[in-house]
């Protein structure tokens, strides 16, 4: 029996879909059977990030309304045998699926897969409620900004009210150089404010833009810092203990300081 994990954030644009694509792919690389479920009905994007947009025939609404069988709607990934996507419908809205239907769907999926990763829409309305309905674990994604952390706090409260205890935090798009200058909140600041356990830190990385352009998750890019962060996060999800990677670039002044023994 697999595990259902929802990726959520409250605020839009902080990287829920990128995170879902990368940890899903990361878990598949490790040999797990994984399905990614896009619950952002009306604004589907996970298919594009995964590079699978041309293969969609049926979607999640077709499945829950009995328009097709679950197997027919699952799209197999280009690269991995055991990685699948259940796309959102693009022409319906969030009310096309109910919480009860989501619970049934995730129940069915976790019998087949080791990990069911749910990409939650932004907001706290029906789409959010649907996305968390069948989940056992939750990952909250935020960026080091006041608005994103504030929304993350609200989401954590709602997850706890829904008895999804102990959500884990991913801080996305961190810029180590700005943190160093004191112009960006650091990890400790956010952990302290949100009182939540950290799952990982993903640095700002141009490789994400390039990988999204191509439809190939950055987790597969061995050169990318963000990719490395997502590989670490995937390992932590399976229970492996991986220390946080060193985000500080070994810059000129750092070396200079070391030279003088500072």
């Amino acid at each position: 029996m697999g595990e259902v994990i929802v990726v959520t954030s409250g605020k839009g644009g902080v990287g829920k879909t990128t995170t879902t694509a990368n940890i899903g792919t990361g878990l598949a690389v490790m040999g797990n059977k994984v399905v990614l479920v896009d619950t952002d009905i009306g604004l589907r994007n996970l298919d594009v990030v995964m590079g699978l947009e041309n293969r969609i025939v049926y979607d999640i609404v077709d499945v829950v309304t009995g328009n097709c069988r679950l197997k027919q709607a699952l799209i197999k990934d280009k690269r991995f045998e055991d990685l699948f996507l259940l796309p959102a419908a693009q022409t319906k809205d969030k009310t096309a699926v109910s919480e009860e239907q989501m619970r049934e769907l995730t129940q069915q999926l976790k019998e087949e897969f080791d990990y069911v990763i749910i990409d939650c829409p932004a907001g706290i309305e029906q789409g959010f409620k649907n996305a968390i309905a069948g989940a056992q674990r939750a990952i909250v994604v935020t960026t080091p900004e006041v608005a994103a952390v504030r929304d993350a706090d609200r989401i954590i409260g709602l997850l706890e009210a829904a008895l999804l205890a102990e959500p884990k935090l991913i801080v996305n798009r961190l810029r180590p150089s700005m943190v160093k200058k004191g112009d960006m909140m650091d990890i400790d600041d956010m952990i302290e404010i949100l009182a939540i356990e950290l799952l990982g830190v993903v640095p700002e990385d141009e490789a994400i833009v390039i990988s999204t352009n191509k439809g190939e998750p950055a987790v597969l890019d061995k050169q990318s810092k963000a990719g490395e962060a997502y590989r670490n996060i995937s390992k932590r999800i399976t229970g492996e203990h991986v220390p946080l990677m060193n985000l500080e670039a070994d810059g000129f002044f750092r070396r200079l300081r070391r030279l003088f023994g500072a």
Partner: protein
Amino acid sequence: MFEFIQRALGLKKDDPTASKNTAKERLRLVLVQDRASMSPATLEALKEDLIRVISEYMEIDQTGLEVSLSSEDESVALVCNIPILKLKRNAKEQETAS
């Protein structure tokens, strides 16, 4: 210039004017408000219930009654300012006797 070198070498830390401190402080303030949220309607209902219960024991100035949520750092408290006009003697006993 000296300051620039210090900063470049990373010797200068915890600059109180650093924008991250502004961000942290603003975040702390909005979260205190978010977490202590209670709709005005709920607050009004609470006020009416309080008046009803307290009136069994003392005569109070209902117009001067203030009820609010006050938040300090980590904790949130319910603060009531209730001006008393007259204390009823043996209020509860009278009620049970009757």
